[in-house]
C-alpha cells in the first residue's frame, strides 16, 4: 500500500484536505446515529450520552402504524416518477439548447428556465391555489369555458401525482439542465464535424454521438438520486398539500407522516430512527445498483 501512495503521492496529497474535511464535519457527527436507539435526554450525562437505551422501540411509531407500507410506496412511487421524468426532460432540454442556433435565444431561454428554482415552495403553493382553486382557479376557468365540468382539485387525490410531477419538473428542470449542458460543452467537436462530412443528419448525430456522451452523467445522476428515493420531498408536499387529509392517499410520504406524528413532540430518538431507516434502505439500493453498473459499465459506477 505504501508503494502505491508513494508512487502517486501528489495525487493522494490533493485528496487530504477533502478527507480531513469529511472526517471532521461528516464522520465525527455520525456517532449521533446511536440516538435512534435511545430515549434521548440532554441532561443524562455529558451531552446526554447516558440516555437510556431502548432498542428498536423508537421505530415503533412508524412501523406499527399499519400505514407505513402505503406511505413508503407513495414515497417510492413519487420519487421514481420525479427521477425518470426529471432526467428525461433535462436531457431533452440540454440537447435542445445545444442544437438551437442563436446565442441570444439560448442565453435567454437558459436563464428563464433557471428562474423557477428560486421561488420557494411556499410561494409556489400560493400560486397553485390561484391555479387549481375550484371556483376561481385558472384551470377550472378554462375547463368551464370549454364546457367541461370543473374539477375539485383540493378534494380529489387522484389528480395530484400528475400535478406534483409537473410542478417538480417546472421547478427543477433548469437546475438539472445545467449539469448536462456542462457535459455537452466539454464534448469534442471534431466528432460532429466528421459525422457531418460523412452525411449524418443532426438527428443521427444526436442519437449516436451525443446520447452516449451523456450516458455516464445520466448513470451517475441516476445512482445518486436512487440513494435518496426513500426521502420524500417534504418541502414541496407540505407546502402544497399541508394538512389536507383528502389528498393523503396519493401524496403522503414518509417525511410528512413523521412530521405530523412528531409535530408537538420533537422526540429526537424517534425522528432519527426513521431517518436511519430511510438512509439505510437507500444505501442498500445504491450499493446494489452500483454493483450492477460495475458489471455492465465499469467506468460509470460510483465506486
Amino acid at each position, binding site marked *: 500500500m505504501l508503494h502505491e501512495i508513494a508512487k502517486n503521492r501528489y495525487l493522494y496529497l490533493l485528496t487530504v484536505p477533502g478527507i480531513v474535511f469529511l472526517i471532521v464535519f461528516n464522520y465525527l457527527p455520525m456517532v449521533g446515529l446511536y440516538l435512534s436507539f435511545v430515549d434521548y435526554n*440532554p*441532561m443524562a450525562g455529558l451531552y446526554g450520552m447516558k440516555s437510556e437505551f431502548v432498542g428498536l422501540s423508537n421505530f415503533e*411509531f412508524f412501523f406499527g402504524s399499519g400505514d407505513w407500507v402505503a406511505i413508503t410506496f407513495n414515497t417510492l412511487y413519487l420519487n421514481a416518477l420525479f427521477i425518470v421524468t426529471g432526467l428525461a426532460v433535462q436531457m431533452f432540454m440540454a440537447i435542445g439548447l445545444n442544437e438551437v442556433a442563436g446565442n441570444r435565444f439560448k442565453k435567454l431561454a437558459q436563464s428563464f428556465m433557471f428562474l423557477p428554482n428560486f421561488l420557494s415552495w411556499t410561494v409556489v403553493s400560493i400560486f397553485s391555489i390561484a391555479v387549481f382553486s375550484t371556483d376561481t382557479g385558472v384551470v377550472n376557468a378554462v375547463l368551464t369555458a370549454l364546457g367541461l365540468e370543473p374539477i375539485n382539485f383540493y378534494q380529489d387525490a387522484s389528480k395530484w401525482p400528475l400535478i406534483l410531477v409537473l410542478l417538480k419538473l417546472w421547478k427543477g428542470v433548469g437546475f438539472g439542465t445545467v449539469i448536462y449542458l456542462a457535459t455537452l460543452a466539454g464534448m469534442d467537436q471534431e466528432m460532429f464535424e466528421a459525422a457531418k462530412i460523412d452525411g449524418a443528419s443532426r438527428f443521427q448525430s444526436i442519437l449516436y454521438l451525443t446520447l452516449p456522451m451523456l450516458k455516464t452523467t445520466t448513470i451517475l445522476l441516476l445512482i445518486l438520486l436512487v440513494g435518496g428515493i426513500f426521502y420524500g420531498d417534504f418541502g414541496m408536499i407540505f407546502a402544497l398539500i399541508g394538512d389536507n387529509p*383528502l389528498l393523503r392517499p396519493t401524496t403522503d410520504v414518509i417525511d410528512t407522516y413523521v412530521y405530523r406524528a412528531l409535530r408537538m413532540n*420533537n422526540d429526537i430518538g424517534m425522528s432519527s430512527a426513521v431517518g436511519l431507516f430511510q438512509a439505510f434502505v437507500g444505501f442498500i439500493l445504491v450499493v446494489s445498483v452500483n454493483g450492477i453498473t460495475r458489471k455492465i459499465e465499469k467506468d460509470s459506477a460510483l465506486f
Partner: protein
Amino acid sequence: MTRITRKSTALAIALLLLLSVMAACSKNEKESGGSPSASTPASPSASEATKPSESSEPGESAKAPPEEVTLEFYMPSGTADVNDLQAVLDRFYADTKDTLNTKLKFNFTTFDNIGQQVSLKIAGGEQVDSAFVAQWTAPNINQMIAKNQLANLDSYFNNDQYPGLKKAFTPEYLKNNSFIDANGESHIYGIPFTHGFDGGGVIYYRQDLAEKHGISEIKSVEDLTKYYDAIVTNEKGIVPLSWNGSQDLISDILWTMVTPLTTKHNFETYVAGTNSSIAIKPDGSLYVAKTVNPWSDPEFMALLPDELKSVDPLAGFKMAREWYKKGYLEKDILAQKDPDGQFMSGKAASVVRTLDIYPSQKQQLETAIPGAKLGYFIINPGYLTGTPKAVGSDFKAWNFAAIPSNSKNIERTMQFFDWLFSDLNNHDLFEFGIEGKHWTAEGDSKYSIPAGVDAAANYNFPGFTLTWNPTMVRYDGNTPDDVVTTLNNLGDTNFFFKKLSAGFNFVTDNVKNETAKLNDVKSLLRTIGDGVTDDIEGTLAKVQKEFDKAGYEKVRQELEKQFSEFLKTNPYEGQ
C-alpha cells in the same frame, strides 16, 4: 490560462485574508458571563420550602451590591430583534445597579425553533437561565418536565422573601399552573404568563355589510345565519366565513355556539391536550369516553347533565356540513391558509379570532377598506350573556418561562422576576417600554401610543414571553367599554367554573408511540369537521377504527390511571 489561474488564486487568497479579519473582529467579545451566582443554590427537587438565602447577613448585603451576572434568556418573537430594547435595558440597569446588578441578554428566535434551540443549548451544556416553554413548543413543557429538565420553582412562590412573586401569583393561579412530573408529584415548573383564562373567541364581521342588508347587530346565531344568507344572496364573490382549514375544526366552534348552558359540569371534552373526554360518575370515579367523538359514546352521554342528554352527537358535524352546502364556507376550505387576509381584503365577510386584538383589528380593517365597520359576535353563549360560572377554564397559561435544572443562576433569575412583578412600573417598563417615549399611561388599566410615534419602529417586546400577568393588564385606550368588560371577565378567576382538569397534565412517556400515531390520525377528522363531506357517520367510524388501530385503548387506560390518581387529591365537588 496561466494568468487567469494566478489572478484567481490571488483573489482567493485576498478574500480569505479579508474574511479572517472580519471573522476576528466579529467574534463575540462579550463572552456570556456565566460567573456562577455567589449564593447558596436552592435545591430544585425538594418540595418543602427551602429558604433560598442570598447572603442574608443584614448590614452587609444592604450596602454592597451582589456580583454582576449576565442572564441568558431564550424566547420566541415575531421579529428578529426588539426595537429600542437597549434603551429599556439601560434604564433597567440604572435602576437596579445597586440592588440586582444583573445584566440580561434576550435571545430571540422563531416560534417553531424555540423548542429545538433550547434543547440544543441544553444538550450542548450552554448557559440557559430562562427558557420559554409551552404546551405548543416542540418539545413541549410536559415532555421536558418528564425528563427532569426543568427546575422546581416551588420555593420561590408564596415566599415573603419574594414579595413581587407572592403578590402577582396567587396560590390558586399557581396550583392550576403546576405540572405533574415523572414521580407523580405536582410542582411549579414554569412561571405562567397570561392575561385572560380564555382567548375569548369571536367572529369578527363587517358591520357595514350587515347594516346594508338590514341587520343592525349580530347578537345570536340566528342573526349570524341571516347575515350569511344575505351575503350569499347579495354579495357574490364574498365568502361569508373564512376559515383556516389546517387549524381547529369548525364543527367545534359551531357546537359551542349551540350547546345549551348548564350548571353542572361533571364532564370535560378533550382533556389536557389529549383526544379523550372524561366524565365523573355519580360515585366520584372516572369514566373516559371510548370514542374520539365523545357524544357518540352512550355511556358517556348517560353521565352528562340532563340539559345535554338529548343533544345530537353529530350536531357539530352536521352544522358544519350544512354551512358548507349553503355556501357559508368556501369550497376549498381545506386549502385556505390566510383567512385574516381574506377578511381584511374584503373577500370574506367574517373571520374567527379573539377579542383581545379588537383595537388592532379595527384599525387594520378601517385602513384597508374605507367605509368598513368592525363588528364582533361572541361565540361562547356564556360570554355572550356574561353569565358567571357558565364557562369553564382550567386557568392554565399557554406560555411559561422555565429554568433548566442545571442552570447555575436559578436564584438570580427568580430575583429578576420578583423585581419585575413587585411594582407595576417595573412590569410596564419591560412590557411597554419607557413611559413617555414608547407609550403613555392612562390610569392604571389603559395605555396609548404617543402621537407621532411610528408604530413599526416602536418598542415591541413580546410580552407573552416575560410579563403577561392577570393582575397587571393594560388595554389599548381605544378599546370600547363593552370589549373591556368582556375582557375583564376573561381575566377574572371568579367568572369561570373550574374545569375538571385544572392542575392536571398528562404525562405521555409510557404512551409516547401511541400519542405520536394518534397525532397523525387526528387530522383525519378534518373532512367532517370542516363540512367537506356528506358521509359523517361513515367517516367517524373510519376515524374511530384508525384511532383504535393506533393504540387509542392504551392511551385511554393510561389517562384513566393518571387522572384517577389526580382525582384523589382533587376530587370533583359537584361544580
